[in-house]
Structures are given as C-alpha cells and as structure tokens.
C-alpha cells in the first residue's frame, strides 16, 4: 500500500472555497483542461458547473428527478439514471475522466461501478466519506451506535448509503482490481488536505473523506 505514485498536492486554499466546495475544487484541479468528463451522481450539478466554467466538456448522471431538473435549468447535460444499472450502456473510452463524487457508498456494487468507471473513462476520480475517520470510530466505539455526521446525517435504517468503507478498504479494493492510484488526498473535517508526508494510518484516522485520481492497470 505504498503511496510513492502520489503527486504533489494541488493548492486548495480555504479562501477559494467561497463559491465552491473544497472537495469539488480539489476534484476539478485533477481534471486536465479541455477534457470530456462524466460526473456520476452529479446531484445539483455544482461540480459540473465548476468544470464547465473551466472549459471542460461535462456530462452528468443523476438519480433524483429534482437533481436532474435543477441541472437542466442550469443548462447542464444531465441524464436521469442509476450508476448501478446505467454505466454498462456507456461505450469504452467515451470520456477522459469519470467522476464519482460522494456516491460510491450509495451504490449496490461498488466494485463493479469502479470497474465501469475505468472502462468508460481513461481516468476516474472517486471521493467518498471515510468510515475510518476518528469521529466515526468514536461514535461506534463509545456511543455504541452507527456513526452519523453533518454530511451523512441519516439514520442507519433510512440512509441511501449502503456500502461504507474506509480509506484503507478503498486502497485495498484498488489493489485487488489492479487500479493505479495516480493521486490520493485525504481531507479533514474542514475540507483541508491532511499533510501527505504522514503515514497511511493517519489519513485513515484523520481524513473525513478521501479523494482519489485513478487510472487503469498499475500493476502490484
């Protein structure tokens, strides 16, 4: 689980978070200008708008009707659909990047979804809430109940998030399906990057979410 491939951190200064979420800015910085991008689970289209403002050709898939309507109103090209069932219909290499932002934990088959992302796109950018985060651990350990956070406020019985994982779990999955991690960033509670020179277990403990830039076939 070495991280020697990781690239230098992009500049995510807190002052830039004014109009956009920090994790969105981080994701957008990972996308090369002029690329074609598919945002899977694009929600209200905030990330797509940010990408389009940078001259990136963006498309979206969103499950909720409200989300789709909002995106269409913004002039974005968004298709109502389900990551679990619809990705198979996208041809190979249709996009330069496929983004899965805070959606992995809501898919029924995260592994299959991840494989599809890297079939459809040359690269994939995946961000997800880290269940190894200390606050989560504490809630289960001390509180004795399934963790809830500001970003994941639903109770265990009515949440759409069904496949939580930790950063450590995700890295293992990437290894398993031979996915190369080009860049990995953990963001703390305030959306600030956790320093890279710290060991993995620190990320897994202090990262509130993880953001990964992936490409095909890294070898082990």
């Amino acid at each position, binding site marked *: 689980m070495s991280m020697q491939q990781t690239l230098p951190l992009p500049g995510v200064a807190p002052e830039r978070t004014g109009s956009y979420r920090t994790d969105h800015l981080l994701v957008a910085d990972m996308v090369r200008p002029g690329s074609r991008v598919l945002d899977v689970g694009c929600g209200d289209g905030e990330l797509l708008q940010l990408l389009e403002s940078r001259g990136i050709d963006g498309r979206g898939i969103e499950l909720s009707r409200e989300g*789709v*309507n909002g995106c*269409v*109103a913004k002039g*974005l090209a968004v*298709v109502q*659909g389900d990551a679990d069932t619809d990705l198979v*219909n996208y*041809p190979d290499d249709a996009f330069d990047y496929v983004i899965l932002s805070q959606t992995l934990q809501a898919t029924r088959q995260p592994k299959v979804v991840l494989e599809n992302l890297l079939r459809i796109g040359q690269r994939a950018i995946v961000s997800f809430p880290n269940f190894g985060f200390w606050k989560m651990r504490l809630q289960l350990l001390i509180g004795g109940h399934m963790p809830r956070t500001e970003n994941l406020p639903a109770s265990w019985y009515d949440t759409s998030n069904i496949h939580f994982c930790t950063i450590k779990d995700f890295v293992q999955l990437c290894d398993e399906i031979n996915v190369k991690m080009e860049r990995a960033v953990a963001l703390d509670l305030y959306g600030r990057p956790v320093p890279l020179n710290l060991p993995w277990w620190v990320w897994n403990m202090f990262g509130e979410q993880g953001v990964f830039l992936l490409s095909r076939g890294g070898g082990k």
Partner: protein
Amino acid sequence: MSNVRPISSPQTQSDDRAHEADHPSSLLAKFGMDQPLKLDCGIDLAPFQIAYQTYGELNADRSNAILVCHALTGDQHVNNTHPVTGKPGWWDTMVGAGKPIDPEKYFIICSNVIGGCMGSTGPASLNPATGKVWGLDFPIITIPDMVRAQAMLIDRLGIATLFCVVGGSMGGMQVLQWTAAYPDRVFSTLAIACSTRHSAQNIAFHELGRQAVMADPDWRGGRYVDEDTHPHRGLAVARMAAHITYLSDAALHRKFGRRMQDRELPTFSFDADFQVESYLRYQGSSFVERFDANSYLYLTRAMDYFDIAGDHDGVLAKAFAGIKTRFCVVSFTSDWLFPTSESRALVHALNASSARVSFAEIETDRGHDAFLLDVPEFLEISRAFLQAAGKARGLNGGGGQS
C-alpha cells in the same frame, strides 16, 4: 335493443373539414411542379402545399424560431381557436403567453404534416391530375417525408437554423428525424414521449385502428368522398381504441372508476351504462368531426415505418454521430405506448455519440397524454431547458443580440 345507439354521424361539420383540407384558414406555402417533395417511396409529389401557423416575431438575426411538431391527430392550430371545432389550441399548456414556449420570446411555427387533413397536401386533398380527392391514390408517406416538407417550409421562411424543434409522440419522431437529417439546422431539441422506432405493439394497435376504418362499409375502398359517405363509425372505433392507449389504467380509474352515467342501476343492455363508455364514445364521435379517415390510415402508417436506426445500418448512435444539437428527452412513468425504456435507448445512443443530452422521466399516472396536460414538473423542465438553451444561443437577454 331499441335503446342501443352507436356512434352517430355529425354531418354538420364535415363541410368545414372538407373545406379546410384544401383551403385552410391558416397560412399556406405552395410548392409548384419545379419544387417537388421527394418521397421515400420514390415518388416526386408536386405540386403540394403546407398549411401552417406562426406566433410571435422572428428576431433580427433569425435565431429564435421554434418549430412545434404535432402528434398523430394534431394539426397546425397549436395556440389558436380551432377553425372546425372552435376549441382552444391543442398545446395550450405548453405554448402561449407566459408558457414555456412563449410567443413573446420565440417565433413559433407549427405546420400541418404532409398527409394530414388540415390544409397540407394529403389523401383528403384534391388530386390536381384528376380533379377528385386523392384518397388511396395518394402515395405512402413517412416521417422523413414530413420532415423534408417542413424543411422546405423553413427554407421558404428564410430560417437557416431553428432554435428548437419540439414535439411529443409522432411530433417527437419528427423532432428526432429533424436532428438526424439536419443536425446543423437544429440548435436544440425537446423530444417528448417518443421513440426512435415504432414498436411491434404500437404497430399492432395501429393495424387495429386501420382495420376498424376499412371494415366500415361507408369507407368504400377509400373513395367515400366521391360516394358521399364517411366511415365515421370505423374511424370512431379506431379513435376509441387509440385513446385507451393514450391513458393509463390508474388515470381511467381515477377519472371514472366503475361509475354509471346518468343512472343508478345497469340497464342490462349495450347502452353506455358506464361513464368510461360515454367518455370513449364522445372521444370517438368528436374526432370524426374534425379528422379524415384516410389521413388516419396514412399517418399511422408513417409512424409504423419509422425507424431511425434502420437508415444507419441498425446502429442508432450512427444517426447522431458528431452532433452538436442540445437534446432534452422526456418520458412519463405511466406511458405504456412509448415507455421510458425506449427513451433510455435513445439517450444511450446519444451518449454513445457524445451528444449533449439531458433526460428526465416525469412521474405521473396520466399516461402518454401527459405531454398535452398540465403536468407541472414536465412544463417546468421544458421551460428550464429552453431558457438554458436560449442563454447559450444568446436569447432571453442572456447576452448576444438584443
């Protein structure tokens, strides 16, 4: 059974209808022998005419034109009182002041399709060669033929690129054909409750309707005008059957249930005891007042033949390869005539061809007809799409020309 009253013939308005078929009370574009319409069946149709209506003003750079394509039994009267029925325009939820397609903003064009019976050349028109009504001598037409004729009209109006082509059902087929055939002439499209090819089930329903018309002894092999009859019973049955497919079980149940019409107890006859029966009979008989039976045969046939992929080696994505048009595809959950799965197949093909496509499935129990009804979420998304596309085109004060 003396109280059995099948659908009666409303003769009063048939003269109006016959008059509208050749001398419509709307704008008319005539194309002479020098400008034939090249039909898919190999025949050059000339002369021919297209009846159309416009609403709003074309702007200085001719960038705000919206073409509205009507469905099977619609016509050009999308936003004005119908000359035969006296009813409001057929899409008054969508088109009009303050509506998503607003004549204050857009120059709206709606033409009667070729093969129709409201002024565009069709089987109800006079055949100049014989001086008689065309009837079944009229050549078989297709959706691409309809669109080719519309393109000639748009040429004549001096419009190079349409801001949007909009339509539902058969109108949606025309929308897709427009974008496949003239990708550079269509800035955006709104394709509603439609499909890129007519399904076997839908062809089957159409055949049922056509057989009902042709089984009527008054049809007279299609020469009913010459013989001064009209197959109103067959046409009404065709319309009743089709109308059921436009609704949903839930909508019918909500509207009528098993309630009786003007009575408490069943009459133990074949009279229209149930409200739903009266409703269908009314739908049937009001339809024959305004529509030509042969036109119904031709237009249903045109829909049956429609298969965009068929013209592109069976690969739908090829039909839209490299297209720049902005698509918005809409389907309805309870539409069993053009179910969401067919819209999804279209969207997948558009994605495969890198087209800029949006797609929404609207939740409603109102069936296929939902696109003609006041379904707020549908109207909202249509408005939002047109506004955003308008902004990209420099309309709506979103930059560009004033």
